[in-house]
């Protein structure tokens, strides 16, 4: 009898979980469109990505943060109406679907698989995978020069997968975060770190790393950073207009140079600033 009751309870729990999992994406829309009457906006950013989205106490800095502030301002939210939410890579889709955030600015590359679950405005930046090396390094100009050498990237990232496919001869060390990679680069365990160029520039521009590393400047992939939205969000057009305005009045370029200062980094100017895609 007792056993039966426990079994029933656990079945009910499973059923409830399954049902709520299905409901989440449908209900997400109604809350999102309301936008709470212009009271506040929740924006997902990375909290641990220096130069892009970084939390220091209660201030947030970085290029993604600057773009987010500009866009939010254009949408009618002042800076103190923004609620910053941590959006680590693995949680981004879920955060949007469950309406945990209204938009995401977190080095979020636009891909077809992601469009199955979320929508994108933008892109607002065109990044490319590149290498970060020690300041005194002169032999490494691209991934071709790394055969038999040690390269570090983050487990499961696009960059790690790409470099494994393109250059199987490289010894790839996979770490859980780029900070660990930079530690290894400094002590000499590895010869280079790879990910998107602007992320590398952001890492190299932090105070602790000032003057120790440089970005090679030979990007070998296309990453188009978009603004993550839930699929029934109606903000896409307005965000694109805001991004276009940010290009036109020079604030975009200012944000880039302010966040990568001292690293010699300049974004690929053939592809930057990118034209926002048409909204679906």
């Amino acid at each position, binding site marked *: 009898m007792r056993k039966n009751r426990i079994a029933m309870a656990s079945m009910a729990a499973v059923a409830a979980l399954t049902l709520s*999992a299905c409901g989440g994406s449908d209900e997400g829309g109604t809350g999102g469109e309301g936008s709470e009457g212009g009271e506040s906006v929740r924006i997902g950013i990375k909290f641990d990505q220096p130069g892009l989205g970084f939390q220091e106490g209660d201030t947030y800095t970085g290029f993604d943060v600057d773009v987010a502030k500009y866009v939010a301002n254009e949408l009618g939210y002042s800076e103190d109406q923004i609620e910053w939410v941590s959006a680590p*890579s*693995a949680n*981004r*889709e*879920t955060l949007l679907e469950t309406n945990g955030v209204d938009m995401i600015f977190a080095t979020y590359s636009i*891909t077809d*698989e*992601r469009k*199955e*679950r*979320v929508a994108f405005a933008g892109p607002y930046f065109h990044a490319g995978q590149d290498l970060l090396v020690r300041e005194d390094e002169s032999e490494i100009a691209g991934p071709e020069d790394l055969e038999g050498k*040690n390269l570090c990237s983050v*487990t*499961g*990232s*696009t960059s*790690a*997968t790409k470099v494994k496919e393109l250059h199987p001869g490289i*010894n790839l*060390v*996979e*770490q*859980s975060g780029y900070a*660990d990679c930079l*530690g*290894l680069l400094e*002590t*000499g*365990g*590895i010869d280079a770190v790879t990910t998107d160029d602007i992320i590398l520039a952001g890492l190299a521009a932090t105070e602790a790393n000032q003057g120790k590393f440089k970005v090679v400047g030979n990007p070998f992939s296309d990453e188009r950073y978009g603004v993550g939205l839930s699929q029934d969000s109606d903000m896409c057009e307005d965000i694109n207009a805001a991004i276009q305005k940010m290009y036109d009045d020079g604030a975009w370029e200012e944000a880039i140079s302010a966040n990568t200062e001292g690293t010699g980094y300049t974004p690929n100017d053939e592809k930057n600033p990118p034209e926002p895609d048409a909204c679906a």
Partner: protein
Amino acid sequence: MDAYLSLWETYGPQMLSTFWTNIQLTFWAAIASVTLGGFLALMRISPIPSLRWFGTAYVNIFRNTPLTIIMTFGVLVLFGVFQVQLASDFNLNFFRIAIIGLTIYHAAFFCEAIRSGVNTVPLGQAEAARAIGLSFLPAARHVILPQALRGAIAPMGNTLIALIKNSTVATAGSVAEISGTMKTMIEFRPDVGILVFLTVAAFFVIVVIPIGLLSTYLSKKLAVAR
């Protein structure tokens, strides 16, 4: 459903091969940590105070240090600073560093599991062994440990299950195992995100449940009737 099948098409072989890495990590680390744990348990019950002290210190240090820290230490310090080479093959080097990390950590738990088995052996057994003229090691080998290990099967089974699951921490040590594959799948296939988690969880369930059943069965069957 189609999306899920295509996930298997793309990542199926990688999932199986990386999960096989977890099994291998577990296998070697289990052998090494049971051995090391056995020695530590002997130290902790030995009549020599300095050995007892060493055994206790080891257990308390490594049982209380998170495995991730031990693993990260292995890579950042052994590989990063001292450039220790345990194998000429680049990836095998990390695999071996990971086995060492898993062993150091789980030896403390196996030691305690074995010692809990020793506690099931009545004190009179040790006294009787001494009375017939056996010194510590022969007494341990012929009288105490055979009974202790039978009593330790259930806790050792639990430690082994923990070891299997903890082998996923080897990702922090740059070993390509299943949780790394899971991160890759989440990065590239968010359209089947939850199914990715469930699939990887199922891999572990399939391996862990038989071990749990077997250790329960053996612990009952082999228990010393008192």
